[in-house]
């Protein structure tokens, strides 16, 4: 390849001549940002992000469309360019309406992926859900019970009815994980040997310990108390958080740690110095804030005045408390409510809460307040204590002032103000002050600096003033919530991990986030269409059941409640958040989306517009990729630009719904969309989003062999995509490849064997089913002979499966009645007409060809991905001839479009051959050197005179002559045959035409035969035919039979078997007694009726037969997403499928086939599908395994599959005299 030299950012580089600047940079590993570029599409330079500076040019140039020139001096990273790109992104995002991340997740201090786990709950994937939760919060059992739920306040569902019960769902998942036997265990990294001390076993300490332990560090937790948990244990009453649950959660963390040292207080039992001496390389201090705040009123020190947390702690420690009859609790937070309810449980007669604001302002959870009221707690609101009235040093009453609410204060709440002269007293035996906590500064080592009584740290790194010592949680922030402490613990773990790896400790980079705004700024009308569904309420113990005891009140959601509640989630966060190119660039370019704030698009989303696709134009950046891919590649043109200026939108013609447009549902638009504007409808109750794992597979629907990526989350396929860099389809897919898998997920799957009884299919055990099959088939073999048995197989099965099926037929059932369904051209005809091992052409040849002829049905309809390749070639100047009767989107691109009815295509071909022979347009040298049988052909073709038939066509004879001449003159003509409508004889004539004109067996020219099921080629190669053994070896050849017989240690049956058509006819005529069908694809045309006339039939199928007549036995069949193995495509490329899901029956297809064969008397023993392909490789040339990479099988001929070995002269294989020339 010719190279062009250029200078990029001061570096001398070279790149392929003819590249654009963007491609040249990419070839050299330099990244230029872009949104509108897709390597599959022509450049458009719309987004203006790829602007670069070219020396000598007036202004910045778009790299995507500017051709590289020799000696160009290019700059891609100047400050000026940074600013322009930033401006472009800020302009784009000034008109972007949507939430990247759901507001619930943003509100969560720990950043739990709430939308993600709720979606998983909705889809029933609880294991995945707990895993996702624990990525951000190792204490879901605790948090699920006591979290203050900042998330629910921001839930967009507030605009519809009530927020989603996010926290109850978390608790459900955590409880489920705890109770289902095998709790989730995180994956641990290899031990690093670093020792870390965590001081304080509260939520912050525990979280830090968990994440540091996962990183492979050796963690020791120190705590001054007799048990871990901190305030979780000593501050929250049993009825809210049972200690047994807490213990389990703590144990799940400590089990990952090196050691836990209890009753060990900092400063007393050890010091920072002593820890360092012991080899601890990092120390995390999370002491909490456990001393209670004073009310600062007169008489506070009287006996009978308790602190809230002190009281709760004593109760938890089991100390005897004498509260008297009347208890007054001061405060409005959770501690106050906890204290009040605890007091009730300790048999206090009357419990009141005194709070200076109203109920609305109480910081305690609303459910707690509600339950407290139900239990009998009285609320004295808008009252502030002024004095404890004591008698003999013991409190007897609390004097208070009435309050009123004034203007909002710094906290945003209205400030309580005293009403002068409104004093009143409340009688009290015990007064509990629960107005807040402080950090107990006495416990903090002197070497640490303080800030407002709290430990001073660097906000970004959590490092204290002493190197290697980090701190977080309440002791840094002052008293806060559990979830904030957990967040601090995780943040500290990240910082400490960086510190231990010798990296500079950096704050976690904040990703760009687009938001619809605060709840109050959103137009409620947007949510008008959302159905109102009441929030599921947490079931609680009946009042009687909880009085005077500490039983847990909230009993948790049932699975059904959890599913229902999770379905209420509005899935606010963008589906594309993990892959969005816009977000990635906005982060990189530090975008402020308010900088150019102005008018925005608010366009309603029509979710019912299309079966597979959702368009959200509010997220569209008008890059035009969808518009271009739809017309340039898919050739459909369903999308275009409507309107002008800022009002420009991508839409359909006159804005009809997409499904009513010319859209063919290929999903190509989704594949190219750089944002979340185009998404597939996910076939799950909730769509995520999640980070998905790709599993590579091959599309089973036609023999193009498109490469797929199954995008998995746990045990679910979320969607199917295709990688841009694969050599077959370059990321392009059609509707079948993109969406057809949905049908494999149908609810009607066969999961266990079924046996027909009284016209019904009933479930049976494997043993029962296999025994029945063996009994019946053996009986037929003995009584009627193997000729009465037949086997049919689908070409959607893998090579390995097909190979075993023909072995089962020949060696266990001793029959040659084997057939497979692979289009109208039967296997026998196909093998004989398109010679044995020759693959004429690869897809690569379509691109390098100068003339493409398509013949038969509409290629763009049946084989869209090949049509995309044709379109690309035509765009580069390749000529195109279309022959067929269907109107195709390729017609308009064709230089010659011969509209010829399907039934007279054969006449056309004969006439064309006649013309070529008559006017001696033959490549004689090629014919003489490479072929035989030319004279026979001439004799045959002379019967069909060109001139005598041209009247039959509705096209002018000159058009036909033009086609012939173009074909003869072409350097590398490729004929693409849609075999759906082409007969074997026609295929033979086409081959003949190619032979006599010498347009075959040369790089870049030949014939591509497109057939329908994905492994149509493999089916023939594996010998699922009556006449051929694997590798197209004729079964009627004794030597061949002997060779295979020796290999397989059993004689190959030698009677002439029936092919597919023959078998089906025989079944109809009652000539077949026993029938085995593998894959209902194999009998698509006939359907179930085929089972009516046979004595005994077995069907191996993915789905249950819908109606009678039923086969006698139905066995489960795994789909392509559940199988591992290989397919062979029409280029003879062997490609590997990986398993995405386990088989529905949990048995592999090959396992079942082998079991059947063994039971029927031919023992098969394979440990894996790899073993089968090894056997295939030994028997068939070209199916050799890759010795370098044992996991994968090589592509059969990597570069140019058409250059396969040609058959030799003495190979005496099937030959149809007079019809087909043979190469020699």
């Amino acid at each position: 390849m010719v190279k062009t030299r250029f200078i990029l950012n001061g570096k001398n580089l070279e790149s392929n001549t003819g590249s654009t600047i963007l491609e040249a940079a990419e070839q050299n590993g330099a990244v230029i940002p872009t949104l509108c570029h897709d390597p599959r599409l022509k450049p458009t330079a719309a987004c203006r992000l790829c602007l670069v500076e070219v020396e000598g040019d007036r202004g910045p140039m778009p790299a995507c469309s500017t051709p590289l020139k020799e000696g160009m001096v290019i700059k891609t990273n100047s400050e000026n360019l940074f600013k322009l790109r930033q401006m472009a992104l800020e302009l784009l995002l000034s008109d972007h309406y949507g939430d990247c991340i759901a507001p619930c997740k943003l509100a969560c201090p720990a950043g739990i992926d709430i939308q993600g786990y709720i979606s998983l709950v909705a889809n029933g994937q609880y294991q995945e859900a707990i895993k996702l939760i624990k990525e951000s919060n190792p204490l879901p059992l605790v948090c699920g019970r006591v979290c203050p739920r900042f998330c629910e306040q921001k839930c967009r569902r507030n605009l519809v009815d009530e927020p989603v019960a996010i926290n109850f769902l978390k608790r459900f998942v955590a409880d489920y994980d705890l109770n289902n036997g095998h709790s989730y265990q995180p994956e641990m990294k290899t031990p690093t040997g670093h020792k870390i001390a965590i001081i304080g076993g509260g939520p912050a300490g525990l979280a830090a310990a968990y994440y540091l332990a996962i990183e492979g560090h050796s963690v020791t937790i120190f705590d001054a108390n007799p048990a871990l948990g901190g305030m979780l244990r000593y501050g929250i009453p049993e009825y809210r958080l049972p200690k047994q649950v807490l213990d389990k959660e703590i144990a799940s963390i400590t089990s990952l740690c090196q050691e836990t040292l209890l009753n060990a207080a900092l400063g007393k039992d050890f010091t920072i110095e002593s820890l360092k001496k012991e080899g601890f390389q990092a120390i995390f201090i999370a002491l909490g804030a456990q001393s209670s705040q004073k009310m600062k009123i007169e008489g506070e020190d009287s006996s009978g005045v308790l602190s809230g947390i002190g009281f709760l702690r004593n109760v938890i420690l089991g100390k005897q408390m004498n509260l008297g009859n009347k208890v007054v609790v001061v405060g409005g937070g959770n501690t106050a409510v906890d204290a009040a309810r605890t007091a009730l449980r300790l048999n206090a007669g009357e419990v009141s809460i005194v709070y200076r604001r109203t109920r609305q302002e109480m910081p305690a959870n609303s459910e707690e307040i509600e339950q407290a009221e139900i239990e009998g707690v009285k609320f004295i609101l808008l009252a502030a204590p002024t004095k404890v009235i004591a008698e003999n040093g013991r409190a007897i009453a609390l004097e208070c002032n009435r309050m009123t609410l004034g203007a909002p204060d710094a906290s945003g709440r209205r400030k309580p103000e005293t009403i002068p002269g409104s004093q009143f007293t409340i009688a009290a035996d015990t007064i509990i002050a629960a107005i807040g906590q402080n950090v107990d500064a006495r416990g903090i080592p002197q070497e640490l600096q303080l800030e407002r009584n709290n430990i001073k740290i660097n906000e970004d790194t959590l490092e204290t003033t002493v190197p290697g010592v980090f701190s977080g949680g309440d002791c840094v922030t002052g008293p806060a919530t559990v979830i904030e402490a957990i967040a601090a613990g995780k943040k500290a773990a990240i910082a400490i991990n960086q510190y231990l790896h010798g990296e500079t400790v950096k704050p976690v980079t904040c990703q760009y986030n687009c938001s619809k705004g605060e709840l109050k700024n959103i137009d409620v009308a947007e949510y008008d269409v959302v159905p109102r569904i009441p929030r599921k309420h947490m079931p609680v113990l009946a009042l009687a059941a909880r009085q005077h005891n500490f039983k847990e009140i909230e009993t948790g959601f049932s699975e059904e409640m959890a599913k229902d509640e999770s379905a209420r989630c509005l899935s606010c966060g963008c589906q594309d958040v993990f892959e969005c190119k816009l977000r990635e660039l906005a982060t990189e370019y530090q975008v402020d989306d308010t900088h150019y704030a102005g008018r925005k698009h608010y366009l309603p989303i029509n979710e019912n517009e299309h079966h597979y696709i959702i368009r959200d134009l509010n997220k569209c950046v008008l890059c035009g990729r969808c518009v271009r891919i739809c017309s340039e590649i898919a050739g459909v043109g369903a999308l275009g630009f409507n309107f002008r200026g800022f009002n420009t939108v991508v839409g359909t013609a006159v804005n009809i719904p997409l499904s009513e447009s010319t859209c063919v549902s290929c999903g190509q638009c989704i594949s190219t969309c750089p944002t979340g504007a185009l998404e597939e409808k996910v076939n799950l109750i909730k769509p995520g989003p999640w980070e998905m794992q790709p599993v590579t597979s091959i599309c089973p629907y036609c023999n193009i062999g498109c490469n797929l990526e199954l995008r998995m989350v746990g045990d679910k396929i979320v969607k199917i995509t295709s990688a841009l860099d694969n050599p077959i389809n370059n990321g392009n897919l059609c509707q079948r490849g993109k969406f057809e898998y949905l049908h494999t997920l149908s609810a009607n799957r066969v999961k266990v064997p079924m046996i027909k009884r009284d016209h019904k299919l009933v479930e049976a055990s494997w043993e029962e089913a296999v025994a029945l099959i063996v009994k019946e088939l053996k009986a037929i073999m003995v009584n009627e002979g193997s000729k009465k048995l037949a086997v049919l197989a689908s070409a959607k099965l893998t090579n390995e499966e097909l190979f075993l099926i023909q072995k089962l037929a020949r060696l266990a059932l001793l029959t040659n009645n084997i057939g497979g369904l692979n289009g109208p051209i039967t296997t026998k005809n196909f093998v004989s007409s398109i010679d044995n091992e020759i693959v004429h052409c690869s897809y690569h040849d379509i691109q390098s060809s100068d003339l493409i002829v398509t013949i038969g049905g509409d290629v763009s309809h049946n084989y869209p991905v090949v049509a995309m390749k044709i379109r690309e070639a035509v765009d580069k100047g390749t000529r195109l001839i279309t022959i067929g009767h269907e109107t195709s989107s390729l017609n308009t691109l064709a230089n010659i479009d011969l509209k010829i009815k399907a039934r007279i295509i054969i006449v056309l071909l004969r006439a064309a051959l006649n013309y070529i022979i008559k006017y001696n347009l033959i490549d004689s040298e090629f014919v003489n050197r490479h072929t035989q049988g030319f004279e026979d052909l001439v004799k045959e073709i002379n019967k069909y005179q060109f001139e005598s038939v041209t009247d039959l066509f509705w096209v002018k004879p000159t058009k036909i002559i033009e086609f012939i001449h173009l074909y003869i003159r072409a350097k590398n003509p490729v004929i693409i045959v849609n075999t759906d409508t082409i007969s074997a004889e026609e295929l033979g004539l086409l081959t003949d035409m190619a032979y006599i004109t010498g347009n075959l067996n040369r790089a870049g020219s030949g014939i591509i035969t497109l057939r329908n099921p994905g492994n149509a080629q493999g089916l023939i190669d594996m010998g699922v035919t009556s006449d051929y053994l694997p590798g197209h070896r004729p079964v009627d050849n004794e030597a061949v039979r002997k060779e295979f017989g020796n290999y397989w240690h059993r004689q190959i049956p030698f009677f002439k078997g029936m092919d597919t058509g023959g078998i089906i006819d025989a079944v109809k005529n009652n000539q077949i007694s026993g029938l085995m069908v593998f894959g209902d694809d194999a009998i698509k045309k006939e359907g179930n009726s085929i089972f009516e006339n046979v004595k005994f039939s077995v069907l191996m199928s993915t789905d249950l037969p819908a109606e009678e007549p039923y086969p006698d036995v139905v066995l489960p069949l795994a789909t392509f997403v559940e199988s591992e193995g290989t397919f062979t495509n029409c280029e003879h490329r062997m490609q590997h499928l990986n398993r995405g899901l386990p088989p529905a029956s949990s048995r592999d297809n090959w396992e079942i086939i082998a079991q059947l064969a063994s039971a029927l008397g031919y023992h098969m023993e394979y440990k894996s599908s790899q073993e089968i392909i090894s056997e295939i490789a030994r028997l068939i040339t070209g199916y050799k395994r890759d010795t370098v990479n044992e996991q994968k099988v090589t592509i059969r001929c990597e570069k140019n599959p058409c250059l396969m070995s040609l058959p030799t002269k003495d190979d005496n294989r099937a030959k149809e005299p007079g019809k087909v020339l043979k190469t020699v």
Partner: protein
Amino acid sequence: MENLARTEKDTRWMIRVGLASCGIAAGARKVYAALNDAMANQCSNNVILKQTGCYGMCYNEVLVEVCSPAGESMFYKKVKPEYAERIISEHILNGKPIAEWSIPSDELNGLLSKQKRIVLRNCGIIDPESIEDYIAVGGYSAIKKILDTMSPQDVISEVIRAGLRGRGGAGFSTGTKWKLCRESAGFQKYIICNADEGDPGAFMDRSVLESDPHSVIEGMLIGGYAIGATEGFIYARAEYPLAVQRLEIAIAQARERALVGEGIMGHNFDFQLYLRQGAGAFVCGEETALMMSVEGKRGMPRSRPPFPAQSGLWGKPSNINNVETFASVPWIILNGADAYAAYGTETSKGTKVFALAGKAARSGLIEVPMGITINEIVYDIGGGTSTGLNFKAIQIGGPSGGIIPASMADIPVDYESVNKTGAIMGSGGLIVMDESSCMVDIAKFFLNFTQDESCGKCTFCRIGTLRMAETLDRISNGKGTERDVELLTELAQGVKKASLCGLGQSAPNPILTTLRYFRDEYEKHIYDKKCPAKKCQALITYEIIAGKCKGCQLCTKYCPAGAISGEKKQPHKIDSPKCIRCGLCLSTCRLGAVSVH
């Protein structure tokens, strides 16, 4: 006054009626019919009544020219059908011109003496629907000359030597453009005439197409011959129905006479010509968008390179010039490059047609040699402002152009000098503004225009122009802040630098030039919340001057907001909160009793 000379050898009286859009709009068809009737009544044989195109004095339409057999010509302005009988009876039958209806000679002199009509040479003189008329004034002799005597290279070098620069706006050398296209590899080449005139206030191309379509066709034939194109397209606005109609007639006539088609004038030169109508998208005046539209696609510009000369219409080498450029070409061929280059300045040669509009006293179409000053155009040709208020600035180059203040109006009009001011020559729109024009408002108008007409393809133009328009809107609404000027400057520079096509790249010009020359006006809007031109509604208040108001109640009647109150014959008052600042009171008051602050 050479243009007025009779070209036809005829001894009869001739009456010319300007029947271009401007004339027709003023009622020229009725005048034509009335003259016809009058002739039929009074005299039949010795008078020729002829429809012609636009003579450029649009402010005087309906314009009727009467030529005596001796060659003396006289223009009647603002003619009404009623005048017909008298014109025939007095002027033609009695040889007594009617002085009170005619254009005074000093006005005519002022208007015409500084003009040089090359492009407009036949406009208003010949019948645009008659190929015979065009041939009679030497039409199609230029194409004959080159086919007989010149090679394509000769034509190209002649045009290069003439110094003709693209009159569409960019001012690229036409000859060089042809040369590049000729040198481009490929058998099939196209030549395209850009007749998609979209600038608000510009109507040069329409006038030429309506008045002299054959000169454009001849120019295209010459261009086609020079670059080796065998097919040509004229892309005209569908909103110019008369131009389209006359073009269709002209093409049909040319085809009939084998001036378009195969073997033109017996030479081995084939040239097919097609007319395509645009659907009124301003951006389709951009050449790559225009080609997309000709191909039948949505007109959206694409990035260059590759240039149309390399890959244009359907990927083939193509050349695009505008109407005025093509119309100049036959004159250059016939009169020689030197004759053309004799006009204009060192770098900007020849003449330029301008559509003089806005507050000019004498608005219309003018053709002047390059290098004339703005002052000469505004005062000598345009007759100053129509309102009597002071001349404030001129907008040149349409929405992509810029504003040049009166203080700089002594600069010569040539490509380089105009560019130096921050404006551009553009296609020839000249809008004269007086003191009542608010510069923020003007910039807002043009930004709204470019925003509406942006094709929506590239980020900067699609969103950037809106954000600029919004900012201007804020400023004119009195909500502007100091940051807004910064924001405008930042956006204007970004959009100018990074937009894909000329539309976006030049859209900020009105902002940049007004900011440069009238920054104080922006500041007054922002800091003082005042609009000095008293234009921006949010920043003005209407008041009734008690001393002048006689209480006639006319304003009360007209006020749509019911904001004016007062007893009859007593001074009225305007209730400011109710007032919607429509200005109706100001325009209805006959006593000048309404003032604006």
